[in-house]
């Protein structure tokens, strides 16, 4: 099993444990569901984490379930690199929208993504960025009258 999957499971376990333990702070009936679902999920996640570290436990569990519990397809180095860069681009795009608003963030993201990430031509990158911006403006601002976020810097 890949370390990445272990890390993901540990992260989920940490979140669930944190939420389950916080559940004790709430009063009366308010803590029932957080505690029940939190403890239940934490137990399951904990068991999966245990399995990820112990092949013996995995082998024991697979007496009861046929499907392979850790079945993530292996990724090539190229794919891993792309994965990191896509996360970076998506987070960057959301940050750009937060700071500069949709009408600046959208063309900026599409143009830069197509030009730098996908290595597309200038014409396609500029053309698609403009086309999408126009469609978004017409559909949301003009027709649906949705006041799109104008950005923290321009607000």
């Amino acid at each position: 099993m890949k370390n990445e999957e272990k890390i993901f499971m540990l992260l989920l376990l940490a979140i669930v444990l944190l939420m389950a333990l916080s559940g004790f702070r709430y009063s009366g009936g308010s803590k029932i569901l957080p505690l029940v679902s939190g403890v239940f999920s934490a137990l399951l996640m904990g068991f999966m984490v245990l399995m990820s570290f112990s092949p013996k436990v995995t082998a024991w569990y697979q007496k009861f379930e046929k499907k392979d519990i850790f079945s993530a397809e292996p990724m090539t180095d190229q794919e891993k690199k792309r994965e990191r860069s896509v996360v970076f681009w998506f987070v960057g795009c959301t940050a750009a929208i937060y700071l500069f608003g949709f009408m600046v963030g959208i063309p900026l993201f599409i143009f830069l993504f197509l030009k730098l990430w996908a290595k597309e031509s200038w014409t396609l990158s500029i053309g698609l960025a403009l086309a999408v911006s126009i469609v978004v403006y017409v559909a949301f601002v003009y027709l649906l009258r949705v006041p799109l976020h104008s950005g923290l810097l321009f607000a």
Partner: protein
Amino acid sequence: MFDLDLFLKTLGIMLNLRGILILLSGTVIGMIFGAIPGLSGVTAMVVLIPMTFSMDPVTAMLLLGAAYGAATYGGAVPAILINTPGEPPNAATVLDGFPMSQQGKSGTALGAAATASTLGGFLGLIVTFCFIPVMAKFVMAFSYPEFFMMTFFGLSIIAILGEGTLLKGLAAGGLGILLSCVGYDPMTSELRYTFGIQYLWDGIEVVPALFGLLAIGEVMDLLVKKKPIADHKRSKAENSGVWSGIKATLKQPFLVIRCSSIGTIIGAIPGVGGTVAGFISYMHAKQTCRNNENFGNGDVRGVIASEAANDAKEGGALLPTLAFGIPGSAGMAVFLGALTLHGIDTGQDIFLVNMDVVYMLLISLLGCHIVAAMIGLSLADKMALLTKIRPVLFAPILFLVCLIGSFALRNSIGDVMVTLIFGLLGYEMRKFGFSRIALILGLLLGNMAELSFRQTLMTEAGVMGFFTRPISVILFILILLSVFLPFFQTYWRRRKNEE
């Protein structure tokens, strides 16, 4: 229970110029999304939901129903032409559809797929239509304990039959319920898990989370894999055989009825999904048809069986979604999100107050099958060209549409952040085989489960309220069986094999 006046009035909304245009647009968009591998009817609906903000709920359902219903037929086109199912439920169509294309009979396969889809969709919806009055009466017999049990029954079924393993499905469902606790307690208004962030006071909005988990997760996967969608050198549609495909389907009425029934029944079971329906129908056809030696090598009956079941499942899946608010599939979860967005409650309310929305859903799904068949039969070869679009050109646009869509829900930039966070979570869950639909279901039903649980405790019977009502007890037994039976079955089988 059947209100003819209301039904005709709803039909009238679809049959005016605006209604027809909306039906056409929804169908075309659905077919395009269905035909592009990696996208689906779910993605089509996610993209279209923001467009429905200014519409009334009935018209919104017309657009969404048409897009969702048409996507399954759209998915059959690349399955037949390029050996790549546009949507997972079309996987069984590949088995005989592509060999037919290799033999130069792609027109026949496309004709058969279009006709079987239309007939299957019709039959599935007719069954649903007949069952709705019964279902409505059944729902009226439900009270707090039954709703609580039904919530967990749906969740347990989805955890078992959804993507990934049972353990991961249950864990994802538990996490979903836990996340549904964020915000005000529905009974005492105590704040939970807000960590001082004001945005979280109202809880995690389901639709932005859904956009992220389902659509952004897929978009990221498309970009990471960056493979050309399909190899097109081998495929070429031939429209000349379309009519022979139609005739072949019409010559197999009982096969269509049997497979549609299988599809409808499987569709009504939460979590099973169209892929299973398609394969079970295909196996059924293979086992029951005479001269079955050609199955797998280009037998048109294989295409008919798979496509009839695929489209019939939508009707079945509507039953638990509308009656109990338990979406049987990702598509139904989006439908449920859209209904909530338009202020429509499922369960008793939808049958008592918003029956027109139910009628419109059924009518739009029926209408889109007719339109999709007409378009599909006339433009089969042109549609295959859509699969040539490189993911890099549409994936960033889809990502932006998800962000704009979630912002437009409440004009909240916080919703955009939620979409991104759930998008990243959805991608990782997809990669490691955690059921995203189980998480969504937990998030959607957590509040209902909590309310019904605490309301039951407040009744005179207290905890025993869950075990003194027959439907509640039956559901409790079903939950136990659905969770533990698969474990014991595997264990017993393994022991038998060892012996």
